[in-house]
C-alpha cells in the first residue's frame, strides 16, 4: 500500500510504502478526497530500515551477528523497510494534497496524454521514458518494441517502458534543439539517434561532423531484424576541399573577411579595411589574388620609383604595361592600403584557404542532396576548415530558403528550396559566447528567425556555458546528459525548467540517460536514449582496435615471412612484394628486415652465413 505521509504542499508530497520500492521518475496517482485523482512524478527515493539504523555514535555499525540473533527470536528485519518517495505534483492545485490519501500506480490510459503526445509514426522515437516500466505493461502494440535499449556491458536490451516520441512538427512553433553533456555522456550517440529518426522522416539536414563519426551504414551489433534500417540512400558524406567547396564568385565582402579571419586566427583592422577595399564584386579567386600580388609588388617598389622608371623609359612594352598597372593600383588603393605588409598578411591567409582546395569546388552536390531530402554529412580536414566552410554553407542555404519563402509572397520567380535542419557537435565552436566566429552571426540569425522559414538547429556541446547565450535562449528543447562542471550546471539551471532535484542528479546520470526539457511537452522528462540502429565507424575502443588491427597485422606479417623461409637477406625484394600484396600493406624493406631480426631474436628463426650471403631459416620446435 502506498500512502501520502508527512506534510504536503500543492507542489510536493511524500509517499511511503512498506512493500514497494519506488522508481525515480515514475508517475503515481494520488487519490485525494478533495482534488480527485492527481498525478505526480517521483523525484527522489529513499529506503530505510528501522532495525538497521545508520552507524552512529550511539549504536555503532550494526553487525550481522546482532541481526542474526534478533532473527532468532522472531524479529523479521526485512519487514521493517520503509520506502519513501518525494513526489512532484504535475497538476495545478490550489491547496495542499491531503495527508493520508492512498496512492496507486496509474493505468496506461491515465498517463497516455501526459507521456505520449504523438504516435510513433508522427514523431521522432528517441528513447524510453524512465520510471514507466510498470505502466507500460498496458501499452498498445504500436508503442511496443520500437525503442530497443543498449548497455555497453550487456548489449541490446528490450524496450522497458513507454517510448519518448518527440513531436518534431511542433518545432515550427517551438524551434531548435540543444544537446548538452560532458565527455562520454551520450551526446554523439543521442545526436545519431535523432538523425536516424530525421532520415526516416526524410527531413533534409546538414550535419557538421568534426569527429568523422557520422556515418550511418554500419548496423549496431545484435539489433533484431525488425529494428534494422538501411539509411544508405538517405545520406551522403561530403568533405570540404575534396568534393565540395566555396564558390569564390558568390562571396560577399563580409564572407571573405570572415573566411580570412578564421584561416589565420585573427585579423587586424587595417587588414579588414584592406580586404574590403581590394575585393571587387565578380572577382574570381585568381583576379583577387593577382590584384593582391601586384599591389604588394607595387607598394614594395614605391610610387616614386615606379614613376621614375616609367619616365626614364627604355622598357619593353609589356614592362611598360606592368608598371602602368602598378601605378594604377597605387593610385586606386595606395591611400587606403599604404603598406605592403598588410597585403602580404592577407595573401598569406588567402593561400592558407586555397591550400585546402576550398576554392576549387562549390556546393552544388549539397544543394542536390538537400533537394532530394537527404542528410548531408559535412567534414573538413580541420576544425577551422569546417567552421569556415560551415559559415559559408549555412548562410548560402539559409538565404536560398529565405528567398524562396519570401518569393511566395512577393511573387518573384525563385528556385524552390526545402526546409532543413542544421546539426552540429561542438556547437560552442560554431557559435561561441564571447569570441567572434565566422558562423556565429548566421547561427544566431537562424536561432531567432529560422522558425519562420522552416530552418532548425540541433546544437550539441560539452560546454553550454561557452555557447552564445542568444542562441542558447532560443533552443526550445534541451536534451541534457550527464554534466559535472558547475558553470555548465548553472547555465542549464538558468536556461531550462529543470528542477533542483533533477539538477542534483545531473553529475550522476549514466551515459545515454538525459533530461529532456522541452517547451513542446511543457515539462522535463527523464529519458534513456534508445539504441542507435547504426554505429560510428570508429565506435571501437582504441585499445581493442590496437589488438585487432595492429597486433594481428604484425603477427600475420611474421607468419608470412616464416612461410617464405628459407630466404636470403640479399634478395628481399620479391619477399617484400609478395608480403605487401598479400596483406594489402606497404611495408618497406627496412620493416621487413626489422621483423626478420625480431624473429631471430625470439628464437623463431636463425641466421647462417652461406656463399649466397646470409640465409634465414625457420627454427621448428
Amino acid at each position, binding site marked *: 500500500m502506498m500512502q501520502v505521509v508527512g506534510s504536503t504542499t500543492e507542489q510536493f508530497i511524500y509517499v511511503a510504502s512498506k512493500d514497494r520500492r519506488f522508481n525515480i521518475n515514475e508517475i503515481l496517482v494520488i487519490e485525494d478526497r478533495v482534488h480527485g485523482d492527481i498525478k505526480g512524478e517521483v523525484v527522489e527515493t529513499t529506503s530505510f530500515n*528501522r*532495525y538497521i*539504523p545508520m*552507524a552512529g*555514535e*550511539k*549504536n*555503532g*555499525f*550494526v*553487525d550481522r*551477528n*546482532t541481526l542474526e*540473533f*534478533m532473527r*532468532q*527470536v*522472531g*524479529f*523479521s528485519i526485512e*519487514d*521493517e523497510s520503509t520506502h519513501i518517495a518525494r513526489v512532484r505534483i504535475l497538476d495545478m492545485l490550489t491547496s495542499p494534497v491531503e495527508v493520508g490519501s492512498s496512492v496507486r500506480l496509474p493505468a496506461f490510459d491515465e498517463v497516455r496524454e501526459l507521456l505520449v503526445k504523438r504516435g510513433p509514426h508522427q514523431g521522432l522515437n528517441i528513447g524510453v521514458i524512465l520510471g514507466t516500466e510498470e505502466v507500460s505493461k498496458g501499452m498498445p502494440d504500436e508503442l511496443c518494441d520500437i525503442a530497443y535499449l543498449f548497455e555497453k556491458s550487456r548489449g541490446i536490451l528490450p524496450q522497458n517502458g513507454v517510448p519518448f516520441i518527440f513531436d518534431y512538427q511542433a518545432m515550427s512553433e517551438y524551434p531548435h534543439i540543444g544537446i548538452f553533456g560532458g565527455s562520454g555522456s551520450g551526446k554523439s550517440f543521442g545526436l545519431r539517434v535523432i538523425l536516424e529518426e530525421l532520415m526516416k522522416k526524410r527531413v533534409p539536414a546538414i550535419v557538421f561532423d568534426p569527429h568523422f563519426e557520422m556515418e550511418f551504414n554500419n548496423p549496431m551489433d545484435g539489433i533484431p531484424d525488425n529494428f534494422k534500417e538501411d539509411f544508405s540512400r538517405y545520406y551522403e558524406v561530403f568533405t570540404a576541399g575534396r568534393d565540395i567547396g566555396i564558390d569564390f564568385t558568390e562571396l560577399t565582402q563580409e564572407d571573405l573577411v570572415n573566411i580570412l579571419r578564421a584561416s589565420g586566427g585573427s585579423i587586424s583592422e587595417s587588414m579588414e579595411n584592406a580586404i574590403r577595399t581590394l575585393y571587387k564584386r565578380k572577382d574570381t579567386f585568381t583576379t583577387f589574388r593577382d590584384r593582391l600580388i601586384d599591389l604588394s609588388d607595387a607598394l614594395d617598389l614605391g610610387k616614386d620609383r615606379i614613376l621614375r622608371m616609367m619616365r626614364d623609359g627604355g622598357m619593353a612594352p609589356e614592362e611598360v604595361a606592368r608598371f602602368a598597372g602598378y601605378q594604377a593600383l597605387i593610385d586606386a588603393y595606395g591611400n587606403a592600403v599604404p603598406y605592403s605588409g598588410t597585403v602580404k598578411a592577407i595573401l598569406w591567409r588567402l593561400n592558407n584557404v586555397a591550400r585546402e582546395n576550398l576554392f576549387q569546388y562549390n556546393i552544388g552536390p549539397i544543394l542536390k542532396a538537400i533537394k532530394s531530402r537527404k542528410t548531408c554529412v559535412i567534414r573538413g580536414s580541420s576544425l577551422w576548415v569546417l567552421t569556415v566552410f560551415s559559415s559559408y554553407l549555412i548562410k548560402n542555404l539559409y538565404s536560398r530558403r529565405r528567398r524562396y519563402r519570401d518569393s511566395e509572397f512577393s511573387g518573384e520567380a525563385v528556385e524552390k528550396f526545402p526546409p532543413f535542419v542544421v546539426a552540429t557537435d561542438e556547437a560552442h565552436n560554431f557559435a561561441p559566447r564571447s569570441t567572434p566566429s565566422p558562423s556565429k552571426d548566421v547561427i544566431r540569425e537562424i536561432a531567432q528567425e529560422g522558425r519562420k522559414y522552416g530552418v532548425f538547429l540541433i546544437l550539441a556541446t560539452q560546454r553550454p556555458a561557452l555557447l552564445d547565450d542568444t542562441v542558447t535562449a532560443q533552443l526550445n528543447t534541451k536534451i541534457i546528459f550527464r554534466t559535472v562542471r558547475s558553470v555548465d550546471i548553472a547555465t542549464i539551471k538558468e536556461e531550462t525548467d529543470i528542477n533542483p532535484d533533477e539538477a542534483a542528479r545531473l553529475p550522476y546520470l549514466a551515459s545515454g540517460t538525459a533530461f529532456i526539457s522541452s517547451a513542446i511537452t511543457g515539462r522535463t522528462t527523464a529519458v534513456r536514449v534508445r539504441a542507435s540502429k547504426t554505429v560510428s565507424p570508429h565506435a571501437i575502443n582504441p585499445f581493442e582496435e590496437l589488438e585487432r588491427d595492429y597486433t594481428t597485422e604484425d603477427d600475420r606479417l611474421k607468419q608470412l615471412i616464416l612461410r617464405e623461409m628459407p630466404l636470403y637477406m640479399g634478395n628481399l625484394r620479391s619477399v617484400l612484394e609478395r608480403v605487401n600484396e598479400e596483406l594489402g600493406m606497404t611495408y618497406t624493406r627496412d620493416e621487413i628486415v626489422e621483423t626478420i631480426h625480431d624473429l631471430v631474436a625470439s628464437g623463431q628463426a636463425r641466421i647462417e652465413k652461406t656463399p649466397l650471403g646470409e640465409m634465414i631459416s625457420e627454427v621448428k620446435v
Partner: protein
Amino acid sequence: MEDGLKEILKGINSILREKRDAKPSKMVMRQAIEDKLGNIVRVNPGSKADWIKSILVVDGSFNSYGSSFPYIINFFRSLALFSSGNERIFLNDIYMPLLDMESFQDEDGEDVMKDIRDRRMAEMEVEAAIEGIKRFGASLVVFDGGFLRYEDKAKDVFEDYRELCREAGAVSVGVIEEIGTFDMARKLRDGLGYPVEDDRELLFGVLEPYEILEVRDEMQFKRGLYTVFARPSMHPNPVAYDFFEEDKGRALEIVRFLISLTPAESRGIPLILDIVDSEAKIRSDEVEALVDSFLDKDIKEGLFRPQRDRRFGL
C-alpha cells in the same frame, strides 16, 4: 577567555588529574572486586538459550508543550515491541495540571507535577509490558532502565506485573546504560585506599569486553532484586542488568543473550532497545503538530505558547 575562568579550569583539571593518577591499577581493582564482590567471568558472545523463544522490548517517552506551570500539556507514550511479527503496543496519554488543580494544594507545583509525570511514565511502561505479556506471552521482557524506578514510581502496577510474569513464566530484565548506584563503590573504597565515586567509575574500563561480574548474594544491594554487571561491547562503559530475585537462575543466560544483541561497536545496549527508544520518542514537531491541529488558536496562544517562542516577537 577570561583569565579568571582559565585559572578555575586549570585548577579543576589538576584536581581531577591528581585523582585519576591516584587510581589503583586495573589489576588491583579487579583483585579487590573479585575478593569482595563476586566472580568475573568471560562469556562468548553469540549464544541464545533454547527457552528464549521471543522477546518483548519496553520503553517510553514524554514531551511537553506550554509556557510554565500549570499551563503545560504533558504527552506520554509507551511502547512494547514483540519480536515475532514485529508486533507493537503503543499506549498514549496526556496530562494537564490545569485540569487537575486539586492535586496541587499548597505545595510547589513544579515538583508535584514532575512527580506525577514520572509516575505516569513509569506506569505506562509497565502497563505496556503487562498488555504485551497478556497478548503475546513473551519468554523474555527487556526494559530500558533499571527496576528501582518502577518500584519507586509505579509500585502497585509493577507488583501486579511481577505476579503476572510468575504466572506466565516470563523472565524480565532491565538494562541500565548509565549506572547510578554507589553501593559497591562504598564497600570497596576503604580497602582500595582510593575514593571511588560510584559503581560506574568502579567498573569503567576494569572489565574486559564480554566479561560479566556476578555479584555474590550477600553483596546484592537492591532488595528483592538481583543485579549483574557486564561490559557487553568494546566500549569501556559497564552496563547493569536488573532481574527479579526469583529469576536469578536465568540471569547469566540472559545477559549472554543480550550481549549477543549488542553491536560490538556500540556503547553497550542492545540494538533493539535503541530502536524501541527512538520509536517511542515523542518528537517536538509531533507535539507542535498535535497542538496545532486540536487546540483553537486563541487557546493555544493565550495559555500554552512557550515563552521561548514569544521572544524576538515571533
